[in-house]
């Protein structure tokens, strides 16, 4: 299996602060890879660097064999790097349909002139897009909400809408930033199942930042641990869980360390 993501010596500095310090990481295709670490360890910055939101001060990022270190975020998204955010980033006043359609921005390839002058219902690109949204929502089990106002859904449903937006374009690579935050244990179990299905049925590689350790240990094949911007451990969930450096890093940090 080849590596879908290959990060080499990635460093991100803000002024005097080094948020990510020469981190190297490889994620093979069709793997669910966990990224954990205490608060402020640099996980989100790492995510942002991979999605292109922050410019690395050093190192390189490779994706599907291409170097994307300086590529702008929208181009990375078009290549197939999609992500969710720590806090919900949906537009509550719009319908689920509209929110998820935003994830298809790069996929809809209609001739703008044709879309301006064709009659209603003949707009093929838009029709296809709607069908893809519906299929994705059905796949996630929230198809019935497609025309609901997003803000009126439950928190868990909104999480799924965000995931739907990230996967509706069938990307090869998905980054989830604490998708389990705020979910009930039952809902976390559903999420666990969903991540496996995404990998197995859709072939999506997943990079997962999560505080709910039980989810990470349960679902991930490989886990990387960041502390103070450095990669301090890497391996299978069992290896990482028993690593003394990891335990030391989590000492005094109680949030989520023992799972829910």
């Amino acid at each position, binding site marked *: 299996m080849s590596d879908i993501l290959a990060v080499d010596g990635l460093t991100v500095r803000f*002024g005097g602060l080094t948020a990510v310090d020469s981190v190297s990481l490889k994620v093979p295709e069709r793997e669910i890879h966990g990224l954990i670490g205490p608060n402020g360890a640099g996980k989100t910055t790492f995510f942002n660097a991979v999605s292109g939101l*922050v*410019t690395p001060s050093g190192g390189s990022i490779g994706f599907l064999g291409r170097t994307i270190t300086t590529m702008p975020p929208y181009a990375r998204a078009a290549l197939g790097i999609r992500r969710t955010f720590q806090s919900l980033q949906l537009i509550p006043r719009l319908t689920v349909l509209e929110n998820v359609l935003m994830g298809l921005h790069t996929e809809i390839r209609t001739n703008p002139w044709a879309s301006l002058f064709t009659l209603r219902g003949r707009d093929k690109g838009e029709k296809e897009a709607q069908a893809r949204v519906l299929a994705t929502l059905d796949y996630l089990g929230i198809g019935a909400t497609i025309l609901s106002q997003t803000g009126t859904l439950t928190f868990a449903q909104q999480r799924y809408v965000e995931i739907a937006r990230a996967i509706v374009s069938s990307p090869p690579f998905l980054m989830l930033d604490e998708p389990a935050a705020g979910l009930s244990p039952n809902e976390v179990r559903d999420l666990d199942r969903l991540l496996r299905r995404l990998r197995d049925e859709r072939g999506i590689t997943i990079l997962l930042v999560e505080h709910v350790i039980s989810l990470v240990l349960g679902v991930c094949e490989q886990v990387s641990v960041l502390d103070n911007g450095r990669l301090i451990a890497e391996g299978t969930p069992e290896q990482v869980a028993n690593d003394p450096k990891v335990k030391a890093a989590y000492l005094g940090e109680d949030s989520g360390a023992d799972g829910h």
Partner: protein
Amino acid sequence: MDIATLLVAGLANGSLYSLMALGLVLVYKTQDVINFAHGEVLATGAFLGYTLYKVVGLPYPIAFVVAILLGGLLGGLIERIAFRPIAHHPHITLAMVTVGLSFALKGALRIPYGRDIYVFPPLMGHTPIMVGATAISPQSIVTIVVALMLAGALFAFFAYTTMGKQMRATQQNITGAALVGINTGRIFSFTWALSCLIGAAAGVLAGPLSLLYPDMGTNYLLKGFAAAVLGGLESVPGAMVAGLIVGVIEMLFGGLISTAFQEVSAFFIIIIVLMFRPHGLFGQKPVHRV
């Protein structure tokens, strides 16, 4: 053309632009919004000064102090009534409210003062003092001195008072300030009050130079924008210096190139600065953060 005379006149006008820019920058730093009603704040200050000095008959210094305090009070009220309830709204909402406020204040001023142009007599007369071939009007000196005193007081306020330090903390990091127990609401009110106080002071000082009418603030506002942009939009000393520069450049444009260009020199400054040095002369190059 006598360059020295142009410079002095430029500095006198520029000190008013500095005050305008200062007021704009203060609000921008704390609330991330440009106050498009600041020109009307200036006009309100001018009319308050006029009413207290000419109609009520207070002595000039007292009229000045009372007018700018009332201007400050107006600023605090604006924040409390219009901006506090929407502090968490998107940026565009805040910006639009300042535009609405600008129309409303202008409309309000037009009801008592809309039918005439009023004259604010100069404090020192217009007969100039001659230094060699350079003519310096006493009123210009008053303007420059008072503006500098205000700026000095402002720096001292930020450097030495608790309130000033808290305001700086809030400007740097609102969440952080709230976490360490600073009452950010009070800081917002105070920022607006301070900004409008300075704006009103600019109005009272502009009164004798300009004539008084409800639209008088527009010109000063535009020059204040230019100064704020040139100063980097977030820098208090930058605004101060940039105001003077805008004042002088405007005079040099008019004096050395053509009077037709004088009016728009400020806009050229805005556009040129944004093209070549968008963080202004004194601003920090923005650090990318998400």
